């Protein structure tokens, strides 16, 4: 049934730290690897080694430049995957019941044998979290590695989503955001975790931690400014070189 559950027992999701993400795309690769080899249709590529490669990914890393009023521009790497919204518009539009939100943990999934590939759920998602697979023609999306997190065949430390397990900078956290005492909820409270496009009322479970303020350099202290100062008032070896060259 594609009506949404009134509430879910848990709200499993990710907390992504935009301050520490280094934009290495390791989470993208591990996601693609795990989800191609395990549950559901593989994530296909077309023309992978040709001129116009296209493929299905459940997690993608954008990069943005943030320019404050004064001070230096900042580069922010921005991983994006399904946010497992509480009020998921992708679920209610689905005509077949293929898309659903689980009552037990809030994970939004697609039952691929019911999906007719109409694409409407991807139209309804504001975040671009759903992609129709080019080969299997069914809708693919992040499963929060539902086949890892409860998988008793895996060692305990691997029972987390592949992206979280892989991230070399500790920028990805997994847990129950419905429990105010969980580590992830505390992290969100402490760092001011935010929702993406809150104005659309999707109530995302996943949260993003904003970049911390950088060291405050005033505009006359920027690294290029200090190089300019060195060039204008050379000292030591450069002063000698400067004087010698002047004499030539």
């Amino acid at each position, binding site marked *: 049934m594609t009506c949404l559950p009134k509430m879910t027992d848990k709200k499993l999701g990710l907390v992504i730290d935009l301050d520490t993400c280094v934009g290495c795309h390791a989470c993208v690769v591990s996601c693609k690897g795990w989800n191609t080899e395990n549950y559901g249709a593989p994530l296909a590529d077309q023309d992978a080694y040709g001129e116009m490669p296209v493929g299905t990914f459940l997690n993608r890393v954008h990069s943005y430049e943030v320019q404050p009023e004064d001070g230096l521009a900042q580069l922010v790497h921005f991983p*994006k995957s399904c946010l497992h919204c509480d009020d998921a518009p992708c679920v209610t539009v*689905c005509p077949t019941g293929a898309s659903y939100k689980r009552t037990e943990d809030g994970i939004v999934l697609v039952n691929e044998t019911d999906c007719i590939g109409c694409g409407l759920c991807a*139209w309804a998602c504001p975040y671009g979290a759903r992609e*129709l697979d080019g080969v299997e023609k069914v809708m693919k999306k992040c499963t929060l590695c539902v086949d890892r997190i409860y998988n008793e065949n895996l060692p305990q430390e691997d029972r987390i989503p592949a992206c979280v397990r892989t991230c070399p900078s500790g920028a990805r956290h997994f847990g129950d955001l419905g429990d105010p005492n969980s580590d992830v909820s505390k992290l969100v409270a402490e760092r001011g975790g935010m929702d993406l496009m809150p104005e659309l009322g999707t109530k995302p479970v996943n949260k993003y931690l904003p970049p911390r303020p950088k060291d405050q350099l005033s505009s006359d202290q920027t690294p290029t400014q200090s190089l300019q100062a060195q060039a204008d008032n050379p000292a030591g070896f450069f002063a000698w070189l400067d004087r010698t060259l002047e004499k030539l």
Partner: protein
Amino acid sequence: MHPAPSVILFTSLSGVGFGLLFFLGLGMPAPLGLNAFIFYAIAYAFAVGGLLFSTFHLGHPERAIKAFTQWRSSWLSREAWLSVLALGMTGLGAVAQIFFETRLAVVSYAGAALCLLTVFSTAMIYRQLATVPRWHTPMTPVLFLTYAVAGGALLSGQVGIAQPVLGLLGALQIFAWIQGDGAFARSGSTLATATGLGTNGSVRAFEPPHTGTNYLLQEFVYLVGRKHAAKLRLIAIILLSGLPIVLLVLPFNHMFAALAVLTHVAGVLVSRWLFFAQAEHVVGLYYGKRG
């Protein structure tokens, strides 16, 4: 949004077909025998033909039957039900008129109502999407219904109704274009809200996640040149509203009537192409492709 031919043909043709079935249901006209057969054959060609086109954009058309299950939440599922009910109900009326030369009034009126409901449900599939501000307005169902009534009046030969409705349609369409041009800005979604980074400064898309294209860009980030769109709008209005009105004002002649239908349908196709091609999905923000 990607203007997929299957969806343009589906919404345009089925709209005209259900419009004609609506008028036949009202008994305007109420043909019998062979005459009825011709009218209903034309109506079903449009309505069923359109619905068949809609299956071309499905990844798994063989499972289409499953789309009937979620009518409680999904407008697409409701549309599936309503279109089958509308075709069934008007079909009963058609059989009575063609083979038994009688008009079943109650069945026909119910069929007419179901036809309008079908068009309404098609429009609601688009109207419900908050992710596409241009569509997320009551104007979407108003327009779709007016398109269907105008096309239906024209095909059923209700000249007295067709003229004012075609005029109204032209005016509503122009209003919807103007209103739609500012819809994205009014929606309040920006790259700042999409990334949550707005409080730190102005945000610019620096590097996309992939060097090639992908499903999201192909499906949601279709860009039409502004000049190009203005010309197409002019062409659409002339074809769908202007020319048919002129042709109907001229002394009646079957050639002119047929021409009016043809230009109208051509105009509907052009305006429906614009409906999709000019619709901006908020996901384009993440790629720096909006505003």
